[in-house]
């Protein structure tokens, strides 16, 4: 199972309208990107974490584990700013401003990643996707996206089991075997995905499918006051960062 997905369904904030969570974490994300990195991004990240680990009860270890991938990218990318190439000091030299730029970039991007992760950790896609058609996307596209979401778990399950069976017959024992096994896994997955589509077509026809996959989407009340309240943290962070910035 996918950690973020499983946690999102368990989240105590699941019942909150996705738009409210979008405004809260999206607002803080904008703060992290648009305000001066210090103290703006730091404040935005800290406030997002306070909401995420506090009332939204996102498990900190899982948050950290899923954040490691993007953080590794950020670290590698920022490291490239430490040096300068082709300058007067030789082909590769320390960039005197590099450390400051790298630190700024790391802080900004890390805060942004935290905001994105917390939105994902509290918002199950099953609640989010059907609402996309109300946001103006073509219904056929929204239905395909929802189908992909459902079918990817079936396909992931297949991939895991086929992979385990291959490993049992030493399919991943060395690099040569691995290339062959991964290729066989990809091919099996493709064939099975198409078989899956044909079977689902047959199954849905029996349920009256003629082309549209319309379903009842539960109404989660969206109150303007809740939306406004969700914007408050971002506004406060912006105000605080700008005032602090003016003092220093």
């Amino acid at each position, binding site marked *: 199972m996918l950690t973020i997905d499983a946690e999102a369904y368990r989240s105590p904030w699941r019942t909150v309208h996705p738009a409210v969570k979008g405004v809260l974490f999206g607002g803080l994300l904008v703060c992290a990107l*648009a305000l001066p990195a210090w103290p703006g991004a730091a404040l935005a990240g800290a406030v997002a974490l306070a909401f995420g680990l506090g009332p939204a009860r996102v498990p900190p270890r899982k948050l950290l584990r899923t954040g490691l991938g993007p953080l590794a990218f950020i670290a*590698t990318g920022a490291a490239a700013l430490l040096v300068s190439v*082709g300058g007067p000091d030789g082909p590769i030299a320390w960039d005197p401003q590099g450390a400051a730029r790298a630190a700024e970039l790391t802080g900004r991007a890390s805060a942004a*990643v935290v905001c994105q992760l917390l939105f994902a950790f509290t918002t199950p896609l099953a609640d989010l996707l059907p609402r996309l058609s109300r946001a103006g996307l073509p219904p056929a596209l929204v239905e395909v996206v929802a189908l992909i979401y459902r079918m990817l778990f079936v396909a992931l399950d297949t*991939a895991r089991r086929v992979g385990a069976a291959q490993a049992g017959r030493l399919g991943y024992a060395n690099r040569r075997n691995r*290339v062959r096994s991964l290729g*066989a896994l990809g091919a099996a997955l493709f064939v099975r995905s198409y078989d899956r589509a044909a079977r*689902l077509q047959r199954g849905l026809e029996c349920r009256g499918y003629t082309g549209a996959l319309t379903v009842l989407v539960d109404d989660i009340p969206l109150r303007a006051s809740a939306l406004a309240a969700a914007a408050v943290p971002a506004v406060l962070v912006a105000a605080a960062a700008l005032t602090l910035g003016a003092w220093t």
Partner: protein
Amino acid sequence: MHIAEGFLPPAQAAAWTAAAAPFVVHGVHSLTRAVRADPEAKLLLGASGAFCFVLSALKIPSVTGSSSHPTGVGLGAVLFRPPVMAALGTVTLLFQALLLAHGGLTTLGANVFSMAVVGPWVGYAAYRSVRALASRLPEQTSLGAGVFAAAFAASLSTYTVTSLQLALAFPDAAGGVAGAFVKFATVFSITQIPLSVVEGLVTVVIVRLLSTV
């Protein structure tokens, strides 16, 4: 190689989104047209999208251990054609951002441009040209060469575009955009070039098996 959330300045993130938009809109258009013509297409597209996502989540073995990698861009371009890949690739990248924290939402446009637009088109072009050049060779050899070229070129062009995107965002103090491009391309080449080769080989195995079924 997914650009993480918040890594690009807002103006550049917006610019890349604008650059990717026409391709994605065109892809969505051809997708909705296909669905309208045939209700079965909806389920096939669902399965194809799921396949793309799972393929991209497979861990490709490499010298530096497993790494997140846009696996399947070239294969997808050959199997589904670039316009459809623009749409399916965008959905895949959205799910990767939300379900795996690979790539971000504000950087979605930039990642779509490299992995769902440039990668598929370059891969598809490589496939067509190699197939044309190798048309005299036996079918299996020509197919293998074409598919390897597609996967390798798609993977490599994706990585090149990403490095360029980063260079434009963070030009080098002395070397400018060109210098920064050299820096980023070097830093990520350690993982990306061997991965592209392995991905090419894996893709050849996949297509060989599929062509015998």
